[in-house]
């Protein structure tokens, strides 16, 4: 029978993430992301009581959710889903209403200050279409980022997901993220409300 539809996903094995941010930098260069905004970034926390302190990292990007609130929110279908599951934004039709940003539970989106439209990680659609890997994956120093077709059981991502306890961000949102983590610490995966006031002005 005809082969299964593709479903691209990323697995980030945090045991291998060295926090170098080569991913962040390569993404900015590959996708010409303007100053001050990021499609991917590496969140870091320190946890524990001195001297029993450990440091955790969490590379972040759009989850290309299977059940994507941003997709539902967009009033003009500028946010759309490609056949391979990738969630994309049509910059020529985005009106910049920002509802998708309000709707995304993951802070994955931002307004491109130059183009004046919503923007986010595209899973490097332009590379993946050509059979290449995303920029951030290709340059991942620790080898933490793995990308591929989750619907192909032979793919590395599929195997990793099958053979490891994987985590996704905010499962309670039922967004069914397509970015999976291995070995993430709970305290880095969401927001933290314990010292909120620090930030307000």
């Amino acid at each position: 029978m005809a082969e299964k539809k593709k479903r691209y996903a990323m697995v980030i094995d945090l045991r291998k993430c060295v926090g170098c941010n080569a991913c962040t930098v390569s993404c900015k260069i590959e996708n010409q992301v303007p100053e001050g905004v990021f499609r991917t970034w590496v969140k870091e926390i320190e946890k524990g009581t001195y001297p029993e302190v450990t440091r955790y990292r969490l590379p972040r990007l759009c989850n290309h959710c299977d059940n994507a609130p941003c997709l539902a929110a967009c009033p003009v279908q500028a946010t759309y889903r490609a056949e391979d599951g990738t969630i994309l934004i049509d910059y020529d039709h985005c009106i910049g209403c920002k509802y998708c940003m309000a709707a995304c539970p993951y802070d994955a989106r931002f307004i491109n200050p130059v183009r004046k439209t919503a923007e986010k990680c595209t899973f490097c659609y332009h590379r993946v279409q050509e059979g290449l890997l995303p920029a951030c994956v290709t340059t991942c120093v620790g080898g933490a980022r793995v990308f591929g077709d989750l619907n192909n059981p032979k793919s590395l991502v599929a195997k990793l997901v099958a053979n490891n306890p994987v985590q996704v961000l905010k499962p309670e949102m039922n967004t069914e993220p397509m970015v999976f983590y291995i070995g993430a610490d709970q305290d880095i995966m969401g927001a933290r409300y314990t010292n909120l006031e620090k930030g307000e002005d």
Partner: protein
Amino acid sequence: MKRREFLKSVATVGTFTAIGLGMENILPDVLADEMIANPTPYDHEAIPVEMKIDPKTGNLTLNPDIILKNSVCLGCWSNCGNRVKVNKKTGKILRVLGNPYHPSNAEPHLPYTTSLKESYLSLGQYQELGHTQRATVCQRGNAAYQMVYDPNRILTPLKRTGQRGEGKWKPITWEQAIQETVEGGELFKEIGENGIIEGFRQIHDQNTPLNPEQPGWGPKANQLVFIGGRDDGRTEFPKRFITQCFGTPNFFGHGGICGASRRIAFLAFLDTWDKKPHMKADYMSSEFVMFFGNAPGQAGIPFQPMARKSALAQSERGMRAVIVDPVLQNGMYTSPDAEESSWVPVRPGADGALAMAMIRWAFEKKKINEVYLSIPSKEAATKKKNPSWTNATYLVIQEPNHPDFGKFLRAEQIGLKMPENNQPAANTQPNINYVAIDKATGNPENYAESDEGVLLYSGKLTIGGQEVLVKSSLQLLLEEANRFTFEQYAEACGLSKERIFKLAKEFFSHGTKAATDHHGGVSMHTNGFYSSMAVIMLNALVGNINRKGGSTKSGGGYLAVDKGKRYDLLTVPGMVKAKGFKISREGANYEDTPEFKARKAKGENPYPATLPWTPLSDALEGHVIPSMMAGYPYSAKILMLWMTNPLYATPGLFRKEVEDYIKDPKNVPLIIGVDVMMGDSSQYSDYIIPDTTFYESWGVPPVWNLILTKVTGARRPVIDPLVPKTKSGQPYSLESYLIEVGKRLNLPGVGDKAIPNAQGEATPMNSAADFFLKAMANIAFDETPVPDIEVDELKLADLEEDLKPYQSSLTLEEWKKVYYLLARGGRFEDYDKNYDGEVLHNKFAKVVNIYNETLGTIRNSMTGELLPGTATWQAPAFADGRTINQVYPDTDWPFQVISYKPRYRTGGYLSNVPVLKDMQDTNFIELNLEDATKLGIQSGDKVKLVTPSGEAEGTVKVRRGVRQGSIAVEYGYGHWGAGAKSYTVDGKVISADPKGGKGVLLNLLALRDISMKTAHPLVDLIGGSTDRNTIKARIIKL
């Protein structure tokens, strides 16, 4: 697609289906499209892809507008490979990727003979090769190319039109720059600075002593002082020119401000002073690695492979990493459900105490590897199938005031009969007959005669009728270890005895699969050398040398700038041998200097020396300017700066008086900076010579140790240099400049008869290409020569096209192989050469030194005392022996500030790279949470950091991962040049980036050695390091 998506979504909302479908059908397609169509491909901004790789077949369709070129990165000193993506139409670099052939980029790296086309598959999804052959560059390697296009990049020679450092310049022609710097004269008359300045020609004088009273210091030629950064694969060129063609000993790398003490400690450990081996741990096969002040993923050389290998080893090979560091850096993974952290927050400067305590524990608990340590010779080692042996059992003369105190006992001294066959295997070991107490007989024996020596021995032997106290090397180490109690060690390093024991216990419980790794954190202290020795010694005590999962001297490289198969790049026909002493007071015993002799002759106590001498060390950039200022041993007449930023980078150097000194031409008549930007230091030059960046220049960079297989990178211009070309068609660059200077002075080693080939005929050296291509020929022909290049690969890499101008540099036969090498970005031994069974393939083939004779027989030039010949614990101290804490007690200076490498910069450099600035444009004063709470300080607060040498204001970042009582400040910020200060060229303002100078530069606050007569950074008297991590401080909330 969109249509289906639309319908799907429509369907989800019953009521609207009608409308939805309605619109789909009713409206004309264009409109319908406009209504819900989304374009594919949709992304306008992303840079064009290099090729298409069919995920099923792996077929490649190349993008004709784009070319990939393998070369070598220099985003930091690690010299990883890279694969530069260049836009053929614009000739501009689009992006930088990793080179899958290069072991620093990939784990494992591709077999060398893999075709270029196949190597492209490492970018794609086909058979997951993009993951299994993933080749990376780090955050800086990705971004560094942007410095090439820095709008403020210096492209023409500049001459100052104001005072030094005033920032007034005018462009001059290349020819004028050469003319004036070579011939000298009244160069700055027009700005009212009369007085004749001597150029290269006047200084190039091998006969007139620079100091008539004490001719021993050397000739006037020595007053040309050249400071040039790093082992970047280019350094060999200026080094050869300065030392062999011009003939001054004063060529300096930056070792002394980098990690010198560690390197020197390894030289003592390995007793190899000519080449510079040092060891790293073989993470991939190790079970337990202690990283002392060298967190992988934070910094380290080589940065990438350290980060990658340790990450893979921890996640896939069950290696456990422990980070001994006042700052909790990246580099170790601790599972969320691990019950204890692997962070060991040691007190800065006290690694020696921790390591010596572990050593003492190992002795007491009998955990040392006795089998290994008792092997006295290579022969015995071979018998016992051990890949290494040590001098642990060799006897050392310890009789007080015996003329040979500190020397190894020689067999002949106690009248042992010489064995007939004492021709040791090919010069693996100097032909000396050491003595060990033979385990079997219990008698002193020629080490070569004994299969197993006694490890701990202390007793008297008769030498020339006199009873002389001798001790085994290991005995000396034991005694050093026992000089302090565990309580004292614990107190010193700020860790509990229990924690120390725990670490020792674990370290000594993995057989030979435990190892230490260390770098700047340990070595950049006044005790850096001995602390390094202690950390290194742990490896000898577990016996992991040359073993899989142990310590490796690394694969090393192929013969390049060397006496190679094709060219002899070591000998310069008619070269001059530099005479006298180095201005940095390095590489010579004080006792041999004119000062010592003169004072001795006068009958006065020759100690302390005016300024300290560092006989074992080299590349002491940090000592040069202090020497110049003190006029001791002498002053300089021409100072050249290239790839270096000494005023910024040297801890405890730059202050007002130093700036004043540099600014005044009377002190240093001529300063020539070769730079790509108006650097913090180069801005004080009289002339600035533009240079090629590492994407535009040639080089044969080795990789810093860690890689188990042989590596030699080949760097070539991957783009047409932005700098203009000279009349002879060479890009403005350091090399072109030196060659033309050399020709003008008709120095040996430049021009048409410069480099001897294998047949001994002199061949030309008229360009950088000439020199480096010849070095590459050596690499290509070393051992079994590399294959000839295939035609299609020649095309793929655009090699012929790119290298047309240089065809004359090599013979056709050589080109074929050099092309092959260039296509792959260097020459790399295959991954399967990592191991031979349980031992490393590339081994250190000489004796390992528990005690080093050279070390044990030189004197401290300040006190006149002999140095300990093995590892020991010394508290950080001034040259006169007073400890830092005695002079700056905790009561007044409760904190100790250390610095660590910037994540988004490299030393002072890359501060002009936009995308890196976007990542982080300033640093912080990082405080421990409890300390901050005590002081009522929060993240974001402004504070004043006060040290004995100065103060600075900064913003606080409160962290859990900073040691209590320590403060951490990231290096690489707080520039006052390098884009942070605007200057004018011909009145036209080159404006500064307001963000350029943000942050604090700790070096301005670092300690100086107050016990010295003149301004001098705090230094390690043996290793030569400038201390950057013992800075006592207090903090004031603003």
